[in-house]
């Protein structure tokens, strides 16, 4: 989507280095794909585009670190602030289309459709937490401009707050002590089989369920919601893929971990790590309860030490002198190769649980629901994401394969366990 009629603003020249987690995404992109995710909010009234535009301008004054473009240096990419604000646009295409990364393009877009506002961002810019903060500020501004009264003291990110430097820090660099490092010994994961959709088509199926309902089911397995859903996801993948040659490769779910829960940080740039939860083929016939226990066992290893080793390992690679002095085009080539060999190859799918969105209760009268979508991966077929607000959880599958077997098995299993599910979709 081309940006048109951008309005000029007066700002000081500002540039930022990419944070540690952001480095891989520009190199991994190709002609048709890059890593994009989406946070949407469905309000109770129809969206007025002109008011949304004013709100976006106000929000970008609060979060100048989002008003950036990506530029090429000799050795690394960097963010350069923009002297224009982007326009909001009507949603007409499938979610999470590629975001073009030219010097004159923003790294996010704001879309509207009916009662829904969507914020789509290139993953180098921010992670789920940063996107939620941006969205909170955007809807606060929007609702107030629509004439609603909100108590700004109860809102985490108000448009009247001043921009905060702590929200711009690279927390990876701050916390890495480079003492102990994790040893990445990934093995190739099973790839989901299915008929690929054309690039740009993303099938979305969202199941809405009461959080209490979900908690009660998870409690039966003595598991957290994340552990239970990961187990159920494994089970539905196994059932739906059992007709294909499973090739002795394990099913691996990559689960992002919000590092802010373990390391004090106010940053709204990337600050997450991940754990690859594995199901060996000897467990392929296991019952759901056994699978959930396997997930629980692996999730136990997440602690500050484990995460610190991962951070150290990544930051160490970034700080290596020989890596630093390599020209960007060689880095691009190497990172693109390593993304194809050691990135998506090491997991079958992504499962990201943002949990209960950390947002003020002030929004309850105006907001119907939030949604969180992971864009189509470069090589893998299906992603699963969860977000909850006001006692309702939205379980969303985004898929670039035509068959709906996994979604079907997942929601049928959840329903058979007592889940009361309402589906919505773009299909």
């Amino acid at each position, binding site marked *: 989507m081309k940006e048109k009629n951008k309005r000029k603003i007066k700002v000081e020249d500002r540039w930022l280095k990419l944070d540690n987690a952001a480095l891989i995404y520009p190199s991994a992109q190709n002609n048709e794909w890059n890593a994009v995710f989406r946070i949407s909010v469905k309000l109770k009234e129809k969206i007025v585009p002109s008011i949304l535009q004013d709100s976006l301008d106000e929000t970008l004054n609060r979060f100048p670190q989002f008003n950036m473009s990506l530029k090429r240096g000799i050795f690394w990419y960097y963010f350069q602030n923009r002297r224009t604000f982007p326009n909001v646009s009507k949603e007409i295409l499938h979610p999470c289309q590629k975001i073009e990364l030219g010097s004159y393009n923003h790294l996010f877009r704001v879309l509207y459709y009916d009662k829904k506002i969507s914020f789509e961002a290139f993953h180098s810019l921010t992670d789920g937490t940063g996107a939620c903060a941006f969205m909170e500020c955007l809807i606060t501004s929007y609702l107030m401009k629509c004439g609603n009264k909100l108590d700004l003291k109860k809102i985490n990110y108000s448009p009247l707050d001043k921009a905060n430097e702590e929200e711009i820090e690279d927390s990876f660099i701050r916390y890495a002590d480079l003492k102990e490092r994790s040893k990445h010994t990934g093995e190739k994961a099973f790839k989901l089989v299915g008929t690929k959709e054309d690039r740009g088509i993303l099938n979305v199926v969202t199941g809405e369920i009461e959080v209490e309902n979900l908690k009660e089911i998870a409690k039966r397995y003595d598991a957290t919601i994340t552990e239970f859903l990961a187990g159920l996801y494994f089970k539905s993948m196994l059932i739906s893929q059992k007709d294909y040659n499973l090739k002795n490769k394990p099913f691996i779910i990559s689960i992002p971990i919000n590092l802010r829960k373990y390391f004090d940080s106010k940053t709204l740039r990337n600050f997450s790590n991940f754990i690859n939860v594995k199901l060996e083929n000897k467990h392929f016939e296991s019952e759901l309860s056994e699978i959930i226990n396997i997930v629980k066992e692996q999730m136990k290893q997440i602690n500050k030490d484990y995460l610190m080793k991962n951070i150290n390992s990544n930051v160490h690679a970034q700080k290596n002198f020989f890596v630093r*002095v390599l020209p960007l085009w060689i880095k691009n080539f190497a990172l693109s190769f390593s993304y194809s060999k050691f990135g998506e190859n090491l997991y079958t799918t992504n499962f990201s649980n943002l949990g209960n969105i950390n947002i003020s209760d002030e929004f309850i009268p105006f907001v119907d629901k939030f949604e969180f979508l992971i864009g189509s991966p470069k090589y893998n077929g299906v992603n699963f994401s969860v977000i909850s607000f006001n006692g309702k959880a939205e379980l969303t599958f985004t898929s670039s394969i035509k068959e*709906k077997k996994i979604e079907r098995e997942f929601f049928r299993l959840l329903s058979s366990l007592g889940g009361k599910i309402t589906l919505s979709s773009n299909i």
Partner: protein
Amino acid sequence: MNRCDRCNVDVKTSSNCPICGRYCGEEFTAREYPVYTKNRQISGFVIHVIFWALLAIAVTLTVCEILFMKKFHISLYFIVSMLAIDISVLLPIKNHWSFNGSISIVSIITCGLIVFIELYSKTFGWGVYYAIPFFVLAMTIYCLLTIIIKKYDKLDCLISLFILALISTALFVYNLVAKGVLWPSISVFFTSWGIIVTLFVLISKRTKKEIAKSFHV
């Protein structure tokens, strides 16, 4: 609200169950996503058509020349020109190259093509004396106008201006040594380096910062 009895779920936004396709009724609320229009990659499609059309013409021309005229003349011009168009026009459009990248590749390839035509047609001189200098001058002025009209940053065309200046220097030196027609290459030499020096003077205050950005390790 619609209900799919097969999946045991409520269906909110469509008359068919999104996961099994079963028809469940018409009691659904408003859609949550738009009805999509096909996002056709028109530029990609056009590029493919142009590429295959050029290739087809080149092959036909070559075969005809070899079969009927028993020589290889016009078709070589065409094959080299086709390669030049591929590299300098289709490739940058397809891969969304930056302004700097596109201008640089167009300049280098066009100059190379002119020299090839000169040499192959045994009419050497008109290219290096007149055509290439005027072409480089036109591209330099185009870069300058882009900065002024599109309000690009002064540094955003620097690489392409630098490459154009290098070409003009090479021309100037060649024409000086070979005692060719000098005035076109002298004009473009001074214009291109003059523009670069002016830009550097204009950004002198932020030079340190720009170097820090571009060279940070």
